[in-house]
C-alpha cells in the first residue's frame, strides 16, 4: 500500500504536532504540553472518527498551506481561517477570529511515543515531529487507525470573542485582580500569556514551587502571567490564582490586545 502523506508547503508562524499531554515526568522537569485548545483539538479528531487525542496539527495564526498525497478525510476546528481545498491542496488564510486551528486527518499522523506521549515538547526538543515546529517541506505520514463509524457532522466555525471571562480559584490574589480588565500582551506563547494592565501590589519572588497550566503568577512588575500547556514545571513567582481547567482552552484563542476578566469561583464549582 502506498504511504499516504501530508506535505507542509507553508508552515506558518508556528505549527506543531499535538497529542495527549505528557504526564508522569514533571518530577524531572518535563512539562505536560498538549493542545492549547483541548476542545477544538478533540472536535477535529471526532469529526474524522479518531480517538480524541490522536496526533493532529495545531496551527497558530493560520497562513498555512499543505498538500495531500491522496484524497484523505480531514477536518479542522478552532480558529476559522477561510480554508480552501483545491484538488489535493489545502490553503489557510489568517484567522477571522481566534488564533489556533486544529487539523486532524482520519487515522491521525504517524508519530512515535516519547516519554509516554506523541505531543511536541519544544523546550526539550523531543516528541511530535522531531521535537520541533514544522517547516516548509516536512512530509508527515498519515496513520491508519481510526473508527470512521463515530464520525459526526461538521459544526459551523466557532466565533471567538475578544472579551472573555474566565473562572479561577483564588490563592490570596489582590482584590483588583478580580475587578480589573487585563489585556493580552504581545509576549505570549505556549508557555504563558502575559497580561497588561494597572500593576497589582504584592508580586515578587517566592521559594521555587511546582506550577502547572492555569496558574496565575504575579512577578514584581505587578502584571500577571497565566501559565499555559508548555509551562515550566517549577516557578519562583508568587502564585495568586489558578484558572479552572474547564476554562483554560479559552486562552488558546485570544490574540494580543484581547481583554480578559477573572471571576472567582470555589473549588466545588470547578467540575
Amino acid at each position, binding site marked *: 500500500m502506498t504511504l499516504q502523506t501530508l506535505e507542509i508547503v507553508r508552515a506558518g508562524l508556528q505549527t506543531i504536532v499535538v497529542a495527549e499531554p505528557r504526564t508522569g*515526568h514533571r518530577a524531572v522537569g518535563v512539562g505536560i504540553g498538549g493542545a492549547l485548545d483541548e476542545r477544538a483539538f478533540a472536535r477535529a479528531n471526532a469529526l474524522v472518527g479518531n480517538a480524541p487525542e490522536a496526533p493532529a496539527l495545531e496551527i497558530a495564526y493560520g497562513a498555512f498551506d499543505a498538500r495531500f498525497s491522496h484524497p484523505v478525510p480531514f477536518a479542522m476546528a478552532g480558529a476559522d481561517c477561510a480554508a480552501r481545498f483545491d484538488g489535493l491542496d489545502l490553503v489557510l488564510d489568517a484567522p477571522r477570529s481566534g488564533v489556533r486551528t486544529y487539523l486532524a486527518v482520519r487515522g491521525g499522523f504517524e508519530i512515535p511515543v516519547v516519554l509516554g506521549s506523541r505531543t511536541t515538547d519544544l523546550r526539550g526538543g523531543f516528541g511530535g515531529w522531531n521535537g520541533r515546529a514544522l517547516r516548509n517541506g516536512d512530509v508527515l505520514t498519515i496513520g491508519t487507525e481510526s473508527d470512521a463509524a463515530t464520525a459526526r457532522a461538521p459544526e459551523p466555525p466557532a466565533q471567538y470573542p475578544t472579551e472573555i471571562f474566565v473562572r479561577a480559584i483564588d490563592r490570596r490574589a489582590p482584590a483588583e485582580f478580580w475587578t480589573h480588565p487585563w489585556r493580552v500582551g504581545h509576549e505570549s506563547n505556549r508557555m504563558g500569556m502575559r497580561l497588561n494592565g494597572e500593576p497589582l501590589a504584592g508580586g515578587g519572588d517566592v521559594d521555587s514551587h511546582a506550577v502547572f497550566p492555569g496558574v496565575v503568577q504575579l512577578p514584581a512588575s505587578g502584571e500577571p502571567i497565566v501559565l499555559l500547556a508548555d509551562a515550566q514545571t517549577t516557578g519562583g513567582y508568587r502564585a495568586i490564582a489558578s484558572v479552572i481547567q474547564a476554562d483554560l482552552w479559552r486562552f488558546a484563542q485570544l490574540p494580543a490586545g484581547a481583554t480578559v476578566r477573572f471571576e472567582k469561583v470555589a473549588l466545588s464549582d470547578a467540575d
Partner: protein
Amino acid sequence: MVEFGTPNITRFGESALVLDVGAGHSLAVQVALGFAARELSELEGAIDVVAGIGNLTLFFDPRELSAERGRTGLVDAWAHACAHARHLGGKPIEIPVRYGGADGPDLEAVAAAHDIAVEECIARHVAGVYAVYVMGFAPGFAYLGGLDASLHTPRRAQPRSRVAAGSLAIGGSMTGVYPLESPGGWNVIGRTDLQLFDPYRTPASLLSLGDFVRFVRV
C-alpha cells in the same frame, strides 16, 4: 527523627496539593522532601510529585484519589521522611567537567568577583558535595545546593540567549548543569560531555531529587 515544625497543606487548583514545610532552606529539609516524594509517587492516583524549595506538590487524579486521601498521604510521607531522611538520600553521581576556557566563559569573572585565583575557584567548586534540591526550569535540570558560600554569585545582568548543552554554571547559591541548549542567566564555569537528559534513555534524567553530585575535573 528530624524536627522541621508543623507543615501546612493547601489545595492548589483542582488536582494538586502542596505541603509547605515552613522551615526555610536547608539540605536536611530538601533530603527529607526527596524521601517523601519517592514514597508519595507510589500512592494510587498520584500523577506527579514535584519538590520545590521547602515544599512538595502532589498532582493527583481526582477520579482515583480524593483530596482527603492525598492530604493524609502527604502527612504520612512527611512524617516518615522526618523519621528516616537522615539515612536515606538518593544515588551518588560523578560528573566529569572541563573548567574554564571556551567551556567556562564566566569562570574568570566569578573568580574575580570573589577576589580569588581561578585555580582556587575551581578547587572550591570541585571540593563540594552537592545535593539535588529541586528539578525544574528545563527537562533534566537540577538545582544543586551545597555551593561553598564564598562562590555564591548573582546571575548575569545580561542573560545569554544560548547556553551550550552540558554547561556547568553558578546562579546565586546554586550550581547546576544545563542538560540541553537553552537561554540562561547563570555564570558558566565549565562543561561536561555527560548527557544529563535523553528522552530515549531510561531513566531519561541522569539526576533526580535527593541525588548527591560530585564534579571531577578533567
